[in-house]
Structure formats: structure tokens, C-alpha cells
């Protein structure tokens, strides 16, 4: 037998490979489809409920151009923007969380706790309490804060390339420092101002301006496209820096670019809605649970994030009649048990050779 004949894969072999590859993909598609359906249902409910309950039929006609003036105002002016922002913010946080956790190889490594969120928060609180800013200006401050902290961590962690663990630990140090700064500012201001700052800190989808919506949408689209371009490299990096190098990935630039994209996503979302508590943290682990592991689970994480935010906002707005609660409070309460379970299991080994 010649070399070629000996190793020519049989039709059976090819079939097995095809089946094995398909299996994972089918599961992803099914899960994604289910999530989209649930999301759509929640979206419809979000448009129906409120001080003025609008019947589903009227909702649909308003969306397609008809409907009464009152309905149009409530649905197109208030509820649709809020819904859209919630979806975008949730997706962005979900993606940011998934990318960080994949890049750093640890399900606990979320932008929520490694300094990015805290940097954005410190900048925003400073803007609110010390400079008296509000609205879009605060968003810019938050964005700037996130990027600044990420830059600082990168510079401090760099040493023949950025080791993931160094990045995380330095980020945590800066997170605590930022928190101290936030606490300081909270004590130096009027109580009411401190309260509004706290509300921002928890994350809320309050009044949505069209500028906010547009800038968030643009940021998200750009970053998602960039992420799509580099996500194959992210999959290779999951195998470790050495194997990734062997497969042709230039590890240091790839890590840098991917980190920047993830920071950008977290920053855009935080600028729009504040650091909505724990969305970035729990979306990817839930996504991975649903998919059964393997791959960074980007699309599903985005969907889970959008679902968490949209669902929580529904509860936040309507659960207690007459009381509107910031969405972050609900996401915090809902995510905390998930996180505690994650924590308790986190000493199981990740990644075997």
C-alpha cells in the first residue's frame, strides 16, 4: 500500500468527523433559537405593560405605523427605546464577560471585578458629584474611565507580553482603589446627590435619549464586527499561548486587540446604563452551561446578557406596583446566588491537558 492509500480517510471517517462537528453546532443553533424566542416574548410583554397597558394588537399596529397618538408616544417614545437600550446593553455586557473569561481562562475573571467597571464608575461618580454633570457627559466620563483603567492595567502588567494573571491581579488592586475613591466621593457630597450616584452605580435604564441610543448602537456594531474578525484567534488562544503560537497566532498583539475590544464593549454598555450589576459576570457561565462547554460561546452569551437585562428590567419596572427600581438591583439579586454557586465550584480544575 502506498502512503496515500494507507492514510486516505474512508468515507466512514469523513462521515464521523462531519457528524461530530455538526453535533456541537446544532446544539448552539437550537439554544440560540430558544433564547431568541424567549427574548421576543419578553420584548412583547415589555411593550404591553406599564401605567398605560396597551393591547398586543395595538402594539403591533403602532409598531407598523398606525395606532393612536397616546399609544405612539408611550410605545415608540418610551418603551421601544428603553427596550432597545436594554437589549444592546445586555448583549454588550454578555459579550464583554464572555471574552474576558475566555481570554483569561477563568470564569471568575469578569470586567465587573477586575477594575474596568470600577474605573468607569469612579469617573462617572466623580462627574456626577464633583462636576455636577448629567446625561451624556456622565456617559463620556464613564467610557473614559473604563478605557483609562484598562490602559493603566495594560501598561502595569506588560512584561514580555501581558500575562493574563498579572492583568487580573493588577486590575483587582485598581478596583479596590477605585472603590475607595468612590466611597470617598460619596461621603463628601449631599446625601441626595450621593443617592443618585448610587442609583447610577447600580445600573439603570431610566430615561433614554436618542443620542444615547444612537451612540450605543454605533459603538456596539463596530465592536461586534471587530470581534467577529478576531474570534477565530480567541478560539486558538483557548488552547494556551504555546499551542496558539504553534497554530500561527501572534499571541501578544492578538491578546491586546481582543482585550481592547472587550473593554470597549464593557465601556459602551457602562456609559449607557451604568455598570449593571453582574450581567457581564454571569452571562458567559450560564451560556457555557447551556451549550455544554467548549468555545467562547459569544453569541449565546450576548443573548443571555440581553435576556437577563430585559427580564430584570421588566421585574424592576412592574413587580411592585407604583415602585420603579433600578434594573441593577434586580440583576444583582438574581445573579448573586448564581455567582455564589460559581464561586463554590471554582476550585475545580479548568482545562485539562
Amino acid at each position, binding site marked *: 500500500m502506498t502512503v496515500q492509500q494507507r492514510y486516505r480517510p474512508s468515507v466512514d*471517517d469523513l462521515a*464521523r*468527523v462531519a457528524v*461530530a462537528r455538526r453535533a456541537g453546532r446544532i446544539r448552539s443553533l437550537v439554544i440560540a433559537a430558544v433564547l431568541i424566542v424567549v427574548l421576543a416574548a419578553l420584548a412583547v410583554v415589555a411593550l404591553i405593560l406599564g401605567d398605560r397597558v396597551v393591547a398586543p394588537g395595538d402594539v403591533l399596529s403602532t409598531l407598523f405605523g398606525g395606532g393612536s397618538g397616546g399609544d405612539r408616544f408611550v410605545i415608540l417614545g418610551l418603551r421601544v427605546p428603553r427596550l432597545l437600550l436594554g437589549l444592546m446593553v445586555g448583549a454588550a455586557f454578555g459579550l464583554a464577560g464572555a471574552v474576558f473569561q475566555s481570554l483569561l481562562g477563568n470564569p471568575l475573571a469578569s470586567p465587573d471585578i477586575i477594575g474596568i467597571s470600577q474605573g468607569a464608575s469612579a469617573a462617572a461618580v466623580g462627574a456626577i458629584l464633583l462636576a455636577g454633570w448629567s446625561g451624556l457627559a456622565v456617559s463620556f466620563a464613564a467610557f473614559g474611565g473604563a478605557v483609562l483603567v484598562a490602559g493603566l492595567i495594560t501598561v502595569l502588567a506588560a512584561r514580555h507580553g501581558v500575562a493574563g494573571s498579572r492583568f487580573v491581579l493588577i486590575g483587582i488592586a485598581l478596583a479596590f482603589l477605585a472603590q475607595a475613591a468612590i466611597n470617598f466621593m460619596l461621603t463628601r457630597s449631599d446625601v441626595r446627590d450621593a443617592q443618585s450616584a448610587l442609583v447610577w452605580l447600580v445600573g439603570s435604564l431610566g430615561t433614554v435619549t436618542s443620542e444615547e441610543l444612537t451612540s450605543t448602537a454605533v459603538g456596539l456594531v463596530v465592536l461586534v464586527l471587530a470581534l467577529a474578525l478576531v474570534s477565530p484567534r480567541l478560539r486558538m488562544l483557548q488552547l*494556551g499561548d*504555546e499551542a496558539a503560537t504553534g497554530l*500561527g497566532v501572534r499571541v501578544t498583539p492578538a491578546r491586546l486587540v481582543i482585550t481592547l475590544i472587550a473593554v470597549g464593549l464593557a465601556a459602551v454598555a457602562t456609559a449607557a446604563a451604568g455598570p449593571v450589576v453582574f450581567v457581564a459576570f454571569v452571562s458567559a457561565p450560564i451560556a457555557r452551561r447551556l451549550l455544554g*462547554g*467548549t468555545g467562547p460561546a459569544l453569541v449565546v452569551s450576548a443573548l443571555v446578557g440581553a435576556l437577563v437585562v430585559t427580564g430584570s428590567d421588566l421585574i424592576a419596572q412592574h413587580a411592585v406596583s407604583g415602585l420603579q427600581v433600578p434594573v441593577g438591583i434586580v440583576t444583582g439579586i438574581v445573579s448573586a446566588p448564581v455567582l455564589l454557586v460559581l464561586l463554590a465550584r471554582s476550585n475545580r480544575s479548568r482545562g485539562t491537558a
Partner: protein
Amino acid sequence: MTSHELRADGLALGYDGRRVVENLDAVIPDGRVTVIVGPNACGKSTLLRSFARLLRPDAGVVTLDGTDVHRYPSKQLATVLGLLPQQPIAPDGITVADLVGRGRFPRQGLFRQWTAEDSEAVAEALRSTDTVDLSDRRIDELSGGQRQRVWIAMALAQQTDILLLDEPTTFLDVTHQIEVLDLLHELNRERGTTVVMVLHDLNLAARYADHLVVMSAGKIVAEGRPADVISIDTVGAAFGLEAVIIDDPISHSPMVVPMGRFHHGL
């Protein structure tokens, strides 16, 4: 397989200011199995890693066909040079087919996603390593030997002419060690893949190597055919070991029988 020249000239390597390899020249013979051996901390893994482009030399250069490996476009280099790192990491829950499939990354890009050629390469790699039946199994469910074969399959799916392996047998029991080494031997003989590996077992190295490189304290002490290289003097100089050299009754390669304080045959 096309032929290539992989060489190191005047190489100096180190970590954080500590120099491990000094002024080293080496040429990897094309189409042969080269094994690098030596005592702990002699620089053998360091040398291999510099060939694999994992380490930047402090001085000197590693070239593939005349081009510095660090200047070679990385995806293109990955179509010629494949690597099995010492402790590879697999994300939880990844299946064999998925992992081996990642070996096709160097040949894919924005405008070239998964093709029939990729499926064939994966199937071929699985068939060669006898892991087709494991395609849909999860990596963490496999035994050490099976896992190592799967990682080799991934490197094979890259369809490179040269394969670098850093201690591929260190954490395996003896049956699996032989299994993996036989596979590599077969790859070399049947396909002409140039194999370069670091082994810590001198006798296995002598058995499987066409070209043996013995290192000690950052320098190459001897290189050549195992029969020529392995001698009482070389073993003594490199390992500081007193030994008797006999003929391996199975493979007829040189076999080192160490003397110690209690067993010295005198």
C-alpha cells in the same frame, strides 16, 4: 513533503537575565527523527522552544529556509512548523473532532472558512493516530495516552512538514510512551515528516532517534547517530553518570545501563 532547512546560528537564549544557552549552532536534518536529550536544566526544552518561535533569542538567529522565524508571517510558518507544547491546555468540554479541527486554523481566513479539504485533513489526522472512534468524545474523558494522540492529531491536521514536540512522553506510562513514539516513527517513515523532540529517557531516545543531540549546560556536547554518540565518555560528560553501554536486544540501538553506589558490577 517538501524539504526544509531549520537551523540555529550563534544562538544565545535565556529567561529574565539568566542565560541558559550560549553560542549554539545546530542544523536539524530534514526528513529524519531528531531527539534532543540532556540532564535537567541543560537547555534542551529552551532550545526546542526557540525553534518553535516561543522564545526570542538574546543573540543569534533561528532560520527556516533562510528566513528568521520571527520575521516569517506567523500563519504561513504554522503551515510548515507544527508544535506540541509540553502541557497543552484544553478548554472544558471540548470534543476530539473540535480540537483536531483547530489545527486547520493556519490555512483558514476571512475568505476561506471550512472546506472539504479541511474535513479530509482532520479525518486523515484522526485515522493516522487511530483516534477516529474518539471523534465525539470529550477530551477530559480520555486517558493520558489517548489525549496525547489527539494533540498529535491536531498538529497533524496542520499538515506541516516539520513537527516539534516538547517532552511528549513525560506524563505517560510506559505503554503509552511506546505507543506515541511508534506513531511518530511511523509518521516520519511513511510521510517524511521531520520530527524534532525533547525526551528525558535516554534509552528511548537512542532507540527512536536517527539523529541524537546531547546537551549539557547550554551547549551541545555531542550529536550524530545514536550508535556513534552514545559512549561511556559522552554519558559521563553530559550526565555525570558512570555507565555500561550494551546493545538493546530488541532494537539493537545502544542502551545505557547506569552504575550507582550499590550496583556497579564490580
